[in-house]
């Protein structure tokens, strides 16, 4: 006659007995056999079961999405035992967690090891090496790109500005983009300085004040280098307008209020640079031209949404980083155009320098910049081709065929 062991004290009892003869425990629990409980993962393929676990490869680990969050299909409950599979797994895991050396799942172990990155170092040395080589080898020259209409428009507008007329220059780029933005804008600002215009600098970035001073210093230094006629730029540095687009909206409504707040008074140590005659600037339209120097498409859009609608005669020109061009170009090609002239990156600087023939900063670095772009394109092209060919020969394992739901 088959016997059944008491789950509490292990005493052997006759099959039919309800309670244990030794400790009196209810033998009802003994009837359940392990594995008889139907688990929510039962009807899935072994690979799907493994993927559904939190810690793939660990048999007893929890299903990735606990029962409370699974699809609201009919919940599967054990028929007799009131402990669900999930709770049983929790118990098993808690026991394992009290012995940490047993639980070292593969993917958590991987997080502790730091992989050295030789490929990154090799690519860095290659790129820096080629760019340095092209900078030092002056004979290597790449042709100047054809001059687009928007660059010619900038030159036309500047040549019409009378001496002493106020020109607003928004220095809205982060210090990280100093190299690119100064190569793009130096020829334009140098021409404005040479024509004796009143430059009014401002910025919606806190470090904009010192960025504008750096740009002016660079123009003076480059003029001294080429021993051309030294010119003392007549400029006024308003500094930082806070609040981004809000600040612009406020500046457009009352430019004179912001300018007065920045005027040098006896007691103030405000950011007044050299003073320029700004008495006649009461509205945004009193500026002859507005230049916006920025690398951020959002900043360019702030100027187009907050300032451009208020302009009547004053042209709005943008000198952009290469990363902002795709988002701002549509505003140039709109009918009617919201921007009247545009320079983009070092290419824009090179194009403008070929018109004004004064500054050559962008031209000196143009070849290296083009080589850097082409090298990046080639490396990506080779990598893409290699991985496509590799994928063609070793197609990723097709996912297991879906079992038909009962």
């Amino acid at each position, binding site marked *: 006659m088959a016997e059944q062991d008491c789950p509490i004290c292990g005493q052997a009892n006759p099959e039919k007995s309800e309670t244990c003869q030794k400790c009196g425990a209810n033998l009802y629990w003994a009837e359940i056999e392990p594995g008889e409980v139907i688990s929510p993962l039962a009807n899935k393929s072994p690979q799907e079961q493994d993927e559904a676990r939190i810690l793939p490869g660990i048999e007893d680990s929890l299903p990735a999405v606990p029962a409370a969050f699974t699809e609201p299909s009919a919940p599967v409950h054990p028929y007799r035992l009131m402990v669900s599979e999930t709770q049983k797994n929790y118990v098993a895991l808690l026991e394992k967690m009290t012995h940490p050396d047993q639980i070292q799942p593969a993917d958590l172990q991987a997080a502790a090891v730091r992989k050295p990155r030789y490929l990154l170092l090799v690519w*860095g040395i290659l790129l820096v090496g080629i*760019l340095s080589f092209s900078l030092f080898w002056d004979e290597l020259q790449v042709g100047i790109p054809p001059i687009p209409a928007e660059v010619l428009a900038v030159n036309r507008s500047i040549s019409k500005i009378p001496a002493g007329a106020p020109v607003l220059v928004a220095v809205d780029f982060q210090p990280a983009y100093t190299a690119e933005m100064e190569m793009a804008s130096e020829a334009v600002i140098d021409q404005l300085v040479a024509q004796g215009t009143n430059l009014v600098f401002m910025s919606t970035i806190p470090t904009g004040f010192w960025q504008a001073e750096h740009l002016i210093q660079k123009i003076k230094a480059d003029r001294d280098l080429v021993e051309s006629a030294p010119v003392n730029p007549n400029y006024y540095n308003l*500094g930082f307008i806070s609040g981004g687009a809000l600040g612009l909206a406020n500046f457009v409504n009352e430019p004179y209020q912001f300018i007065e707040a920045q005027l040098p008074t006896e007691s103030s*140590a405000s950011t007044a640079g050299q003073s320029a005659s700004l008495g006649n600037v009461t509205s945004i339209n009193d500026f002859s031209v507005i230049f916006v120097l920025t690398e951020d498409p959002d900043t360019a859009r702030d100027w187009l*949404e907050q300032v451009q609608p208020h302009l009547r005669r004053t042209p709005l020109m943008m000198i952009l980083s290469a990363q902002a061009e795709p*988002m701002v170009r549509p505003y140039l090609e709109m009918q009617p155009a919201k921007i009247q002239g545009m320079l983009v990156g070092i290419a824009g600087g090179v194009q403008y320098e070929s018109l004004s023939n004064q500054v050559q900063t962008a031209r000196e670095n143009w070849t290296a910049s083009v080589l850097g*772009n082409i090298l990046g394109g080639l490396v990506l092209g080779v990598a893409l081709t290699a991985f496509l060919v590799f994928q063609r020969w070793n197609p990723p394992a097709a996912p297991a065929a879906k079992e038909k739901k009962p």
Partner: protein
Amino acid sequence: MTQADWIGAILGLCLTLGVFSYLLGDNRVFRLVIHIFIGVTAAYVLAGSWYSVIFPQLVQPFLSGQDFWNPLALAGIVFTVMLFSKLFPRTSWFGVPVMGLLVGVGAATAIGGAVIGTVFSQVAASIRLFDFLKINTWNAQVWVALVDASLILVGTLVTLFYFQFYIRKQPGSQGSVTGWMKTLRLVGQGFIAVTLGAIFAGVYSAAVAALVGRLATFKEFFTLLFHP
């Protein structure tokens, strides 16, 4: 170059090499340079905001007595104190009204900018793409422009539909889109990939320009060093 310029150039080059040491892995030199940089930028941001905004527009009107009894300026001072109370957990509750005001104004500028600046201007630009008056001139260039305009219109709409969230669920489908909506989203995804690819090329070009600028500074320094 003056002596200060020489010292500055050498300091700049050392800091540049410190940043590029990141290629060897996250190391102490790189962290040291970054932490110097964080302190210096914070100082310039504080100085820029003080000299350009806080002093001329908040402090100076009070010192000169001009705004001493102006209730609106006084409210500005109270809000400033409320904002500083956010610095400490114990007094943080005192700053809740000013954060409420700023979040409300922020939400309004977001909606206003989105409706007028983006939705209306982009919809108007999409409509204005088609200049039918010129069509009867049978000029080849006009037809090319019309084909381009149609491509832009289709691209705009399929990109917009790519982001459709609610779908008519097929039994047994794991939330994947099926039928004509799937084709629409695939084309939309193509346009998004081309757009983001173009911007990524611009980001890389800007980064290469910065690298060229740094290397040009190296060249200038060594040229002056060996050929004064």
